[in-house]
């Protein structure tokens, strides 16, 4: 069978990325231009600045990717692009780039849902085995998804308010940890003890999550302690916070695995890099005989490799868009 080469383009937040992936699993080249140092000064991603950076970088990222893989656009079979969810101004840059390439080279244009990309990041590690449960945890998402087969997605539940990564960043800000605070908070958690008593958020039998109450509890605790003139042990608070987050995510994920009688769990999204969560899921999955896949850190954050991988399977399922494809800031995974 002839190999299929997909060019992936991702620009949904603050990373401009292009990647060439063969047959959905062999990464030939990936280039990521991260804006993290620019947004650091503002304590978070500034959408208008992100959009401006994407325009600046897009052709250079594409050029570097093609050069690295020693390929030309003529070698590409189809162009996969993130069309949503994400920051609309950011999404539009990758989208217009992809549409222009599709137009010039008369290639198929494949729309990819960002979360589906995160899920298929695992396919770059090892071929997905179905049925499976996908736990998507990032700055914008906390979702449990059931996949019966390739490119079939059933959302079981998600966050009712803040995404887990967002909650990490906000708690980090309260503790004066510089942006992006999530990874640093994870590091600190490993140096502390769970001495602070925090509520387990939405501790029920559903597959829904809620993190805003936990975030408020941390903020209130810090303010109260400071008002009393007590010093906060940041490592201990980070550890206490991480403990309840990891506990609730692990519990609900395992419930999904049992309820849907699956033997495979994949984790996706930026928070999949969280050491505490990795340790907890690894331990629990080992105990229960579940095959767990967590992508390496480079595939956890936003990248076009995962978009090209998901794009390959979307292409096999006939998901092709025309040039009127528009960016969407929010789009349910099942609607796509």
């Amino acid at each position, binding site marked *: 069978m002839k190999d299929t080469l997909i060019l992936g383009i991702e620009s949904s937040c603050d990373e401009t990325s292009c990647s060439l992936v063969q047959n959905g699993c062999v990464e030939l080249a990936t280039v990521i231009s991260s804006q993290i140092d620019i947004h650091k000064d503002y304590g978070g991603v500034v959408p*208008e*600045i992100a959009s401006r950076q994407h*325009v600046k970088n897009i052709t250079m990222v594409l050029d570097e990717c093609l050069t690295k893989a020693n390929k030309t656009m003529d070698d590409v079979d189809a162009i996969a692009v993130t069309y949503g969810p994400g920051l609309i101004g950011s999404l539009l840059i990758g*989208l217009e780039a992809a*549409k222009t390439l599709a*137009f010039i080279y008369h290639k198929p244009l494949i729309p990819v849902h960002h979360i589906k990309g995160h899920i298929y990041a695992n396919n770059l590690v090892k071929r997905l085995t179905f049925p499976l449960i996908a736990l998507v945890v990032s700055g914008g998402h906390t979702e449990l998804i059931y996949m019966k087969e390739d490119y079939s997605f059933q959302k079981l539940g998600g966050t009712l308010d803040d995404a887990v990564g967002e909650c990490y960043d906000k708690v980090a800000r309260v503790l004066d940890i510089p942006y992006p605070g999530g990874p640093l908070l994870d590091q600190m958690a490993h140096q502390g003890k769970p001495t602070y008593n925090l509520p387990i958020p939405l501790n029920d039998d559903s597959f829904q999550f809620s993190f805003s109450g936990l975030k408020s509890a941390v903020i209130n605790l810090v303010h109260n302690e400071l008002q009393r003139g007590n010093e906060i042990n940041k490592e201990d608070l980070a550890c206490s916070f991480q403990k309840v987050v990891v506990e609730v995510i692990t519990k609900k994920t395992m419930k999904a695995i049992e309820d849907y009688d699956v033997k495979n769990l994949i984790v996706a999204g930026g928070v999949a890099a969280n050491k505490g969560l990795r340790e907890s899921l690894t331990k629990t999955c080992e105990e229960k005989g579940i095959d767990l896949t967590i992508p390496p850190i480079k595939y956890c954050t936003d990248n076009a490799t995962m978009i090209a991988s998901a794009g390959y399977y979307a292409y096999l399922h006939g998901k092709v868009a025309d*040039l009127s494809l528009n960016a969407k800031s929010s789009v349910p995974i099942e609607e796509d």
Partner: protein
Amino acid sequence: MKTFYLDTSSSYLFAGISVDKKIKNEVKLKLDKELSSFTLPQIKELFTSCNMDPKDIDKIMVVNGPGSFTGIRIGVTIAKIYAYSMKKKIVPLSSLKAMAILKDTSYDYIVPMIDARRGYVFGAIYDKEGTAILKEQYIKRSALEVAMDDLPGKSVIVSNDSFDTEKEVLPYNADIEEIICRYEDLEGINPHAVEPNYLKLTEAEENKQKNA
């Protein structure tokens, strides 16, 4: 010389293809929020109507601002990817300069204005030959109108935005052939180096500067 022209800096899409400075066909459409959905389909139709392939083009001209930030980025991204792919250079062009080209030659001074909200506009003053008398800037509309009062000849505002003003205002209907004629021979630049001309920092950058 076969030239492709693209302007998405406002709520209008202006695009055209010329051969040896004569327009083959053009698109002039009010698209508002549908700019992203319609721009490439319209460009595709434009090429089809001219019986041309995107690979036939020698030169790419793009309006890179000032104007709608999102609009400018759509046009500039298309032009950059297109030019990069075809190994061509880009001639970036100011939206205000393009707006200053009028068929009616009875005006001595042309004052293109694009609404930038809160009483501000992106504006400039040009003479008939397109020389800037007041260079393009982000300026209070009232200040620009005062500057118009000091001009020694007949002047007119060109804009597709509605302003409450006593000055004469002409709507902007791009004379694409004339714009291409006047500017296509300018030396192009490498697509990697082409950037939107926002004429304004983002709010976050402004606030940071204020607090510095």
